[in-house]
């Protein structure tokens, strides 16, 4: 089979370039490196606790503050907050200047990270002063401030006569759970699925744009190197074109598979870390998205092939790389329109416009996946749209092969549309 020879050449010559190897393995390595670095930084900052001296002129707030801080420091491992170690320094309003001077010396000599001066009227003034070597340590400042606020609030409530036991029960947080009411009566939470859909269609777009251009270049390259005449004397243009498209798509799939596996490993690792930290991540995942994944895979393949064949058509019309850049603009616009339509469909998945648009082959890959993500389109609609996509790809490749056959022989100016139609007749 000649088409297999074409696919094989495309796959082998592309996967063996330094660029391909670098991108395929370098990007996950780079990502892993960043994650590792990030993790190390977080670890390092978590293990360091700020050593702070507290001068409590109010003579009452320190116990409360220490209690709040001890609690938040204990939770720092899971919520990423700052850790503090407090020591109380006795002083009076009169002795404050000397105390401050000695503390300042200790800060300068790095035996202290900073010191806090709580004024006598802290409960009413609600201010305090924090002196530190590193005044820009934003997270430390924010956490300290929040702890102080809690401590002051507790102190004021205690002063108002509310028992300690009641205070703790009043501090609980609140979660709002969102549920979706759909026509099928099936209610599931919607936010995560929509986010998942956006992630999926964005990935689809990225792939189509990135590799579509590769297909286009591959075809233009044959024209500019003029090897096409030799090729066409050995193989029919349809097999050649289909072989090239499938070859580049196969190359892309190899690359994406490597990335996918790496991503899977990262995610699995991340989830086990979350699990280990006692966080129940399953609540953040969309419920049962397996049908969505199946649809995504189907339309990923169909959309990829379709756009690759259109990019190939552009490559066969133009005769230089610069011309290709200009000519592909309309296609990029179509792609962008589809992308923005996805947000309309996401908001209105059941309107007739959304349904119709999800059958238009150029938009279908994205819009049908979006519909599946946010509503429940009938299975026949999904399959029909998929079949339509593949049929369009086939037709596009046929037409591209014809354009290519004539286009290679005319390397002058870019043809106008009527000329293109005449080419189709010649071939």
């Amino acid at each position, binding site marked *: 089979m000649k088409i297999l020879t074409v696919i094989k050449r495309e796959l082998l*010559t592309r996967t063996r370039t330094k660029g391909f190897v670098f991108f395929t393995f370098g990007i996950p390595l780079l990502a892993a490196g960043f994650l590792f670095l990030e993790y190390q930084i977080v670890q390092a900052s978590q293990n360091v606790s700020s050593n702070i001296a507290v001068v409590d002129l109010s003579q009452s707030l320190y116990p409360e503050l220490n209690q709040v801080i001890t609690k938040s420091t204990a939770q720092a491992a899971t919520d990423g907050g700052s850790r503090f170690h407090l020591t109380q320094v006795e002083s009076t309003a009169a002795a404050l200047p000397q105390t401050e001077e000695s503390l300042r010396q200790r800060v300068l000599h790095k035996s202290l990270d900073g010191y806090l001066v709580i004024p006598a009227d802290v409960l009413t003034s609600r201010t305090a002063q924090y002196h530190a070597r590193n005044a820009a340590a934003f997270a430390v400042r924010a956490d300290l401030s929040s702890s102080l606020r809690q401590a002051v609030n507790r102190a004021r409530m205690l002063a108002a006569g509310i028992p300690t036991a009641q205070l703790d029960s009043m501090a609980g947080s609140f979660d709002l759970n969102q549920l979706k009411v759909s026509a099928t009566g099936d209610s599931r939470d919607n936010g995560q699925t929509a986010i998942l859909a956006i992630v999926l269609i964005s990935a689809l777009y990225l792939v189509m744009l990135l590799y579509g251009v590769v297909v286009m270049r591959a075809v233009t390259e044959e024209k500019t190197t003029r090897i096409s005449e*030799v*090729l066409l004397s050995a*193989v*029919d243009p349809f097999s050649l074109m289909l072989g090239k498209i499938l070859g580049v798509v196969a190359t892309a799939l190899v690359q994406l598979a490597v990335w996918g596996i790496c991503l899977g490993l990262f995610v699995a690792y991340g989830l086990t870390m979350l699990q280990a930290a006692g966080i129940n991540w399953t609540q953040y995942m969309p419920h049962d998205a397996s049908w969505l994944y199946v649809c995504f895979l189907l339309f990923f393949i169909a959309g990829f092939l379709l756009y690759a064949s259109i990019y190939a058509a552009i490559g066969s019309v133009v005769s230089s790389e610069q011309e290709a850049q200009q000519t592909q603009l309309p296609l990029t616009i179509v792609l962008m329109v589809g992308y923005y339509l996805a947000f309309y469909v996401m908001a209105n998945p059941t309107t007739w416009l959304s349904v119709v648009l999800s059958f238009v082959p150029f938009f279908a890959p994205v819009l049908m996946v979006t519909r599946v993500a946010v509503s429940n389109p009938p299975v026949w609609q999904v399959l029909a749209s998929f079949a339509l996509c593949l049929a369009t790809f086939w037709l596009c490749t046929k037409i591209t092969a014809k354009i290519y056959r004539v286009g290679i022989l005319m390397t002058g100016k870019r043809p106008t549309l009527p000329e293109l139609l005449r080419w189709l007749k*010649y071939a």
Partner: protein
Amino acid sequence: MSASSSPAIVCEAIHKSYGDVRAVENLSLTVPTGAVYGFLGPNGSGKTTSIRMMVAILLPDSGQIHIHGLPVGDHTKDQIGYLPEERGLYQKMKVGEQLEFLAELKRVPKSEAKGRVTRWLERVELGAWADKKVNDLSKGMQQKIQFIAAVIADPPILILDEFSSGLDPVNANLLNDILLEQRAKGKTILLSTHRMEEAERLCDHVCLINKGHKVLDGRLSDLRAATGKSTLRVDYTGDPAILRQAPGVASAEDFGNYAELKLRPDAQSPQSVAEIMRFLAPRLVITRFEQLEPSLNQIFLDTVASTSVPASASA
């Protein structure tokens, strides 16, 4: 199959136009199996368009082409090795891999392709270049690689468009020898060229086309015999004006060191030629005096001149 008995290539009344431009008009020709067939014509005469139809890259608007008795199409592509005038190879692919790929495209089994590539590269003295990328090669080297691409699958028919253009004499000779080997193996070879002396040296059949029309077709020896020994070659020193005054000379083409005199049809007998010699001998220093059949170049020029002046009549 009747493959061996049918002529290698038969074109019957093929037409091809691009819009208003008629590239090929009513072209019929037969390339006998085993012939070295010269397909001649000036630039822009429709040679390349005709050839592209023979290798099924283009389809004729009307008319038919048969390759060994089969209608031309994708299935006849394996019978023809094609060297296009517009040379082209994948620039960033290694020489050896590229030739293996092109061989496989012509259905050479993978197991065999490698050995053939090695043998051919050594034959054209590029054995050491198999692992180099094409764009590391000189133009002449690429030309030889392109030539190998045409012959690697060992097809019964070779179509070579301007096969020696851009080659230095050493390499032109090398490819010439290979061509003669191929002819000895019974291959049919169609050579397209506008260099008449090359066709004269290699071809046994020629077909001349001009402006999309065939103007002459036949065995080279027959064409020459038909025009008779109508040419005198004279190597001389002296005043070239004298040449035209000799009796029986229709026209003279002076090349400086020698001239070709065209004889009137009634002045080609030995007596007439002797008379011309007697006329010239006292007036010029003559080192060579020879009566010849006309060169292909002369035939071509004459034919083109006689057919294209009344262009409307022949159309």
